[in-house]
Each structure stands twice: as structure tokens, then as C-alpha cells.
């Protein structure tokens, strides 16, 4: 096809070098868009970037806080990775995170007589199960009734938010509080902190271990082979005798469970109670992280630390230069679009033609 005298031709093979060049261009373009956004807010680009970087990675303390922010992002990134590998376009990580948080909170608040280690494991199991249920619904509907998973997961996100809002306003509400939130969970249920005077909790270790486990699942197990198979060529996998419906449902259960673990970390490791605002789009950021990581479970870790850093550093940027933290969320959309274009551009050769 020809646009403005330029012809796009599909390449037979994509060279590594060309892939790298387009990716680098995408990042450069993202930085350019960020600069424009900063100028739009009438702040100095240099100062804003300096504050952003210092707030994210400028000191040991800042770095630990970046890891705090990266912890749930790793888990939602893994959640999206598992689903997208099977070409199941789940956008439900946000809702699954919340159902996981609810289940984890309930166990943490009620089963306090358990020994601490068992209680910790029970909270993780409950959170995984809570997220898994929320993932099972779209998985089942897709596998058995061929219902589009995108719409079901999006709609479930809204339903879960209203469910949480109901629980916080009525049965689980701490009456003395003005804002709708639950009472604080007993200290025995809190996730232990890894470094003194930091907020980095054991959830970070859970996230790292999950990355390795998901890598192992996808690349070393039979189920992982089938998950990748239905993503690459569902017909071929079906003819090999794989039960596609079963694998679809299992994929969504695992994907939901991983997002649920993120919810447990936020409740038991950070807020120590359930509130309406425990997730500010962590589930959606997971989509960008998974895509940037090239749907590689280990690549999710650096991608999540990068975005955790952006979220963390943007607070300092807002205080020092007045650029709203919402910039980070704009950049997420821009990065995803540019990244997708870069990957596609790498597959084309652009030629100038005289007569279009």
C-alpha cells in the first residue's frame, strides 16, 4: 500500500538489528512525548526528568520504594503474560486483584489463631483462589460458550468494584471511620518487612518466585506447552488431541490467581486493611508490562521495576515541579502504542515511489 509516496513492503525475515533500532526509536519517541507533556504543564523538562529519576532510583531508600511499587506490577504482569501467551485477551487483572485482596483479607482477619507461617500461606492460597474464581468465569464462558473474553473481563472489573464498595460500606465496614474501609488486620497477619525502615515486604519475594514458577510452567511443563500452543496454532493443538477448553479454563484460573496474589500483597504488606483505592490501575499497567517484556515471565521483572520507578518517581516530580503524577499513566498508553508500531514497522521496508 502507498501512503504519501511511501510504500510499505512486508519483509520476509526480521533482522535483530532492525528490531533493536525500531525499539530504540520507540523509546526515544516516548521520551519526546513525555517532554511535550511536561512542557504542556509549564515545567522545565530537565528538572522534571531529574526529579523523576531521583525519586525512582536516586537513593537506596527511593530504590526500595520503587520495588514496593513494582511488587504488584510483577504479579499482574505475569497474570497478563500467561493469558496473552494463549492469545486469551484478558483485561481482568484489575478485578482479579481485588477479589484476591478480598479473599486474602478475610483469611487474614479471621484465621488469626493459625501459626504465623501457616497463616501467611493460607492468605496466599486464599488470594490466589479469590483471583482464580474471577478468572475462571471468563475462562469457562470462553471455553464452553465461546463468549468473548475481552468484554466479560472488562464488565467483571466493574462488577467487582461495586462488590467491594458494597462490602466496605456494609458488612466489613469499620463503623468509627468516616471513609469506607475495613478495620486494620491483626499484626500477626501482616506480611513481614524485608529491610528495616522500608515498606518492602515479603510480597516482593513472592513476586520473584512467581516469575520463576511461571517461566518454568510455560517452558518446562506439558501444560505450558499447551498454553503456548493454543496461542500459536489452536487448530494444530486440537488435532494433537489437546483439550483446548480445559487448557483455556486453566490458563485463566492461573492468570486470575497471579493477579489475586498482587491483591494480597497490597492489603497485607502495605495498607493492612481493605480500602476502595488499593489498586490504581495496577491490573491495566500489567498489560503494558507484559507486552514490553515480550510476554517473557522473567522479562516482566525489569519492566515492572521500570514502571514501578516511574510511579514512585512521579510523586517527587509532582512535589518539586508541579507536573501531575497522572503523566505516568499517559506515558503507559503512549509506550504501548509506540511499542506495537515499532514491532510492526520492523516487519516492513519503507520505499519511496514516484507514481503512487
Amino acid at each position, binding site marked *: 500500500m502507498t501512503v504519501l509516496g511511501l510504500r510499505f513492503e512486508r519483509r520476509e525475515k526480521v533482522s535483530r538489528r532492525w528490531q533493536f533500532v525500531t525499539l530504540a526509536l520507540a523509546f526515544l519517541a516516548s521520551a519526546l512525548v513525555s517532554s511535550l507533556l511536561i512542557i504542556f504543564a509549564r515545567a522545565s523538562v530537565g528538572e522534571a526528568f531529574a526529579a523523576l529519576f531521583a525519586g525512582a532510583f536516586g537513593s537506596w531508600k527511593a530504590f526500595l520504594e520503587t520495588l514496593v511499587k513494582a511488587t504488584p506490577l510483577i504479579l499482574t504482569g505475569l497474570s497478563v503474560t500467561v493469558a496473552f501467551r494463549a492469545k486469551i485477551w484478558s483485561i481482568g487483572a484489575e478485578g482479579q486483584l481485588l477479589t484476591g485482596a478480598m479473599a486474602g483479607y478475610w483469611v487474614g482477619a479471621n484465621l488469626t489463631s493459625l501459626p504465623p507461617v501457616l497463616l501467611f500461606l493460607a492468605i496466599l492460597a486464599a488470594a490466589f483462589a479469590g483471583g482464580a474464581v474471577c478468572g475462571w468465569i471468563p475462562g469457562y464462558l470462553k471455553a464452553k460458550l465461546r463468549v468473548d473474553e475481552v468484554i466479560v473481563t*472488562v464488565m467483571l472489573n466493574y462488577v467487582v468494584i*461495586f462488590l467491594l464498595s458494597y462490602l466496605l*460500606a456494609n458488612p466489613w465496614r469499620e463503623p468509627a471511620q468516616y471513609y469506607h474501609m475495613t478495620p486494620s488486620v491483626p499484626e500477626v497477619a501482616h506480611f513481614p518487612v524485608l529491610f528495616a525502615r522500608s515498606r518492602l515486604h515479603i510480597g516482593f519475594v513472592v513476586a520473584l518466585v512467581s516469575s520463576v514458577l511461571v517461566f518454568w510452567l510455560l517452558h518446562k511443563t506439558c501444560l505450558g506447552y499447551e498454553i503456548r500452543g493454543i496461542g500459536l496454532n489452536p487448530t494444530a493443538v486440537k488435532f494433537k488431541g489437546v483439550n483446548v477448553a480445559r487448557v483455556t479454563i486453566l490458563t485463566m484460573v492461573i492468570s486470575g490467581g497471579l493477579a489475586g496474589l498482587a491483591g494480597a500483597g497490597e492489603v497485607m504488606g502495605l495498607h493492612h486493611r481493605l480500602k476502595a483505592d488499593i489498586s490504581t*490501575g495496577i491490573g491495566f499497567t500489567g*498489560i503494558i508490562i507484559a507486552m514490553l517484556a515480550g510476554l517473557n515471565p522473567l522479562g516482566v521483572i525489569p519492566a515492572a521495576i521500570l514502571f514501578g520507578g516511574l510511579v514512585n518517581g512521579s510523586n517527587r516530580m509532582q512535589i518539586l515541579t508541579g507536573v501531575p503524577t497522572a503523566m505516568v499513566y499517559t506515558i503507559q498508553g503512549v509506550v504501548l502504542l509506540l511499542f*506495537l508500531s515499532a514491532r510492526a514497522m520492523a516487519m516492513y521496508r519503507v520505499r519511496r515511489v514516484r507514481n503512487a
Partner: protein
Amino acid sequence: MLEALFQPTIIISMLAGMVRIATPILLAALGVLITNRAGIMNLGFEGIMLMGAYVGFWAAHQTQSIPLAILAAIVSGGLMSLIMVFMASTLKVDQTVTGIALNILASGLTFYWYRVAYKAATAQVMPSVEIMQRVEIPILSQIPVLGRVFFSQYLLTYFAFLMVPCMWFFLYKTKYGLELRCLGENPRAIDMKGINITRLQYITVIAGGMLGGLGGAFLTIASAGIFVPEISAGRGWLAIVVVIAGNWLPFRILMATLIFSFLDAFQLQAQSLGVQFPYQILLALPYVAAIVLIIVSRARSEAPSALGVPYFRE
């Protein structure tokens, strides 16, 4: 308490509410319809509506002019869908992920722009704009019941409802409509006829996005008068749901839209009457209904066959 919901005056205001609430979803759904007919699945309509809602609000606040605000919202919807069609038609990127990216972009950009433009805004003191006036149609608005329900509405509402038969006429009775339907079914045939597929897709997808932006603007400059982050609240997704539930047929899409809007009008009325029922469950009703509707509407006989499939010339 529940009897209060079934009094004639309440029912009439509920139905009038239904028609008003239907407006933005219907506009966006018609946009989704033509986009799909061009063979492109644009899942970014939630973002397109949100963008239209903010840009419309911002322009109304800057210029105090409703027509300019509407124009700005239409342009913003067109620009958003330009990104979509460039990625889908020119670069042939996966349409699902592109749509998701558009939603994330709109969600961040509107929030950022709002914070930059209205630094002093708080939850208590929000900037607001004068909203559109209702237009009573002479004579028709005097008809009992129907007059209140259908003929004392906003201009945009009349426009949205009139667009339904217009869209039907365009798709089924004109040459361009035939080409468009053919494009979604069998792009190769259209290509062989010598019609410029790329051009047709660009025009249609951008026009669809413009309708979505217009629908979004209704939320701020006709309904609320203020902007709050995520004000679109899933309506762009509902627009996609009603298109599927309406089996890609204009009049069925109208029916599906009215069902949703009735549920929403019902829950608003129930809340304002103070019915003893957790309001969160009422609020979740349209979204639960969307899931149910998408499960039961499995007869996709009219779905464009080439929907979401990029076209490559051999």
C-alpha cells in the same frame, strides 16, 4: 416502598431518563457498527468516549460555546480512531491490543490534561460548564406521556435517534453502504473491483470514532456539566456489547441500547426514591446485564466475516 416505583409519573420520568441515557451509548454504538462493517474491531471506544467527554468539556469551558465544544469532541474522537485505523489497516497490528492501548492512553491523557488545566479543582469545588438546553418540539411535546418521554429532550438525543434509520438507509439502500458491508465480508472482492480499501477503511473508522467522541461529549456538556476522571464508566464497552447483542443490525442495536438504558434509569430512580436495597448492587446491574446479554446473543449471523482480520493483498 417499591410501590412508589410503579406510579405513572415515576414511570414517565423513568422512560424519559431511559431515552436520555440511551443517547451517548447509541451514538457510540452506531460508530462501532460502521467500524465493524469496515472489518475493523475497535475496542478503543471506551477511550474515544472518555476523550470526547473531556475535550468537549474543556472546549465548552474555554469558549462557553456548545457548538464549538461538540466540534472539538468530534475531532478528538476522529483523531483517536485515526490512531486505530493506522495501526490496524496500515501496520496490521493486532486490533485487540491496539484498542486496549487507546483506552489506557485516553484514561491517562484526560486525567493529566484535567489536572494541568484545572489545578485548583478539588472533589468539593469542581469547574463546571453550562449544559445544553432541552428542546421541546412544538405540538409533539404536548402529546401525553410520549411528549415527555420522546419530545422534550436534547438536540443530540433527537440526532442520535434519527441516525438509526439514516444508518439503516445508508447501509442497505446506498452504493457506499453496499461497498462497506462487502468490505467487512469479503475485502478481496472489493479490492478486485478496484475500490481503494485503505481509503474506505480510513474514512469509515474515523467517522465511527467521531460518533463515539460526540457520544462522549453528551456525558459532560448535556448530562453532568462537570468532568470527573473515568466519567465514561464503561459506556464505550456497552456500545460494543449492544452492537453484538443487536447482531450488527441498526434497529436491533437501538432495542438493545434501550434495554440497558432502562436498567440504568430504573436504578437511578430507585436510588433517588430511597428504596431499601444496597445501591451498589443496583449500580452493578447494567454490567451484569451486559455479561448476560453477551452470553445469550450467540446468533452472530450478521457479524462481518472479516471482522478483525487484517487484509493482505496477495
